[in-house]
C-alpha cells in the first residue's frame, strides 16, 4: 500500500520533468540516405541514355558506310587497320609502317565521329529532303 507520505513525495517527484532528448536526426539521416541514391539513379539514367544514342548513331553510320561511296583500297586498309588495336603504340606502328592504312583508319574514325556528308543516306541529303 502506498501511504499518504509516499503520495505526497510522488507528487513532488512528478514536478520534475525529464529533459527532452535532442531532436531526432531522422530527416537528416533519411536525406543523407536518399541523396546518393538519387545521384546514382540520375547517373545511371544518363549513362543509359548515352548508350542508347551511341548505339543508334553507330547503327545508322554502319548502314551509311555500307551504302556509301568508299574506295576499295581504303576499305581494305580500314579492314586491316580495324584488326589493330586503337592503342597509341599500335597507331604509331601503323603510321610508321603503312601511312596509307593509317590515313584510311583516321578517315574512317573521323567519319564515325562526324556526320556523314556523302552517299545516299548522308545527313545532308536526308536533311535536304526534309
Amino acid at each position, binding site marked *: 500500500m502506498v501511504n499518504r507520505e509516499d503520495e505526497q*513525495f510522488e507528487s513532488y*517527484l512528478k514536478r*520534475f*520533468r*525529464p*529533459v527532452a*532528448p*535532442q531532436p531526432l536526426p*531522422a530527416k537528416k539521416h*533519411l536525406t543523407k540516405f536518399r541523396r546518393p541514391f538519387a545521384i546514382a539513379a540520375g547517373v545511371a539514367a544518363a549513362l543509359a541514355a548515352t548508350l542508347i544514342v551511341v548505339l543508334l548513331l553507330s547503327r545508322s553510320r554502319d548502314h551509311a558506310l555500307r551504302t556509301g561511296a568508299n574506295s576499295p583500297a581504303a576499305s581494305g586498309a580500314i579492314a586491316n587497320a580495324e584488326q589493330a588495336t586503337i592503342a597509341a603504340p599500335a597507331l604509331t606502328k601503323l603510321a610508321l609502317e603503312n601511312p596509307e592504312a593509317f590515313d584510311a583508319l583516321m578517315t574512317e574514325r573521323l567519319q564515325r565521329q562526324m556526320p556523314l556528308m556523302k552517299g545516299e543516306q548522308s545527313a545532308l541529303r536526308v536533311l535536304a529532303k526534309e
Partner: protein
Amino acid sequence: MTKVPPADSSFPQIEELYRQYGGPLLLFAVSVCGDPNRAQDAVHHVFLRMMETGSLRGVEDAKAYLFASVRNALANERKFQSRNVAIEPERIWFEPADHDYAAELNLRRALKTLPDDQRQVVVLHIWGEFTFSQIAEVLVISPNTAASRYRYAIGKLREAMMVKENTNG
C-alpha cells in the same frame, strides 16, 4: 495503453511518439546505463530503426514497446562495449520546477544511490506513468516484484533526498 493502428508507419506518428515519450525514455535510458550520451544514442537508435523498418506495425502497446526497445538496445550495446567505464558527465536529467537546480541535483544524486533495478522501476512508474503490470512486462519481472522494488526504492529515495536537503540547508 497507446494502441498503434496497423497502418503504414508514418513519420508524423513516430514523431508524435517521440515528442510524447522522448523525455521519459531518455531518463529511463540514463537510469539503465548511467551515461546521458549513450542514453541519447539508444533512444535515437530505436526511433531511427522504427522509421526505417516500420516496425510499429501491429504493436499493441507502443509505449511499453518503446521502453523495452530502449532497454534492449542498451543491453545489446553493452555486450559489444569494452569494460572501460566512461566518466559520467554531469548533465541534468530533469527540468526542475521554478528553476530549482539544487533540487534537481539532489534528486539526481539520490536516484544514483539506488540500485539499478529499483531506479528503473521508480523512473518507469513516476515519469513513465507505467502501472506495475506494465513495468513487469518491460523489465521481464513479476508485477509483485515491481511493486516491492518500488516501495523499497521510494523509501530510500525520500530518505536520501531529505538527508541531502538537511545537509544543504
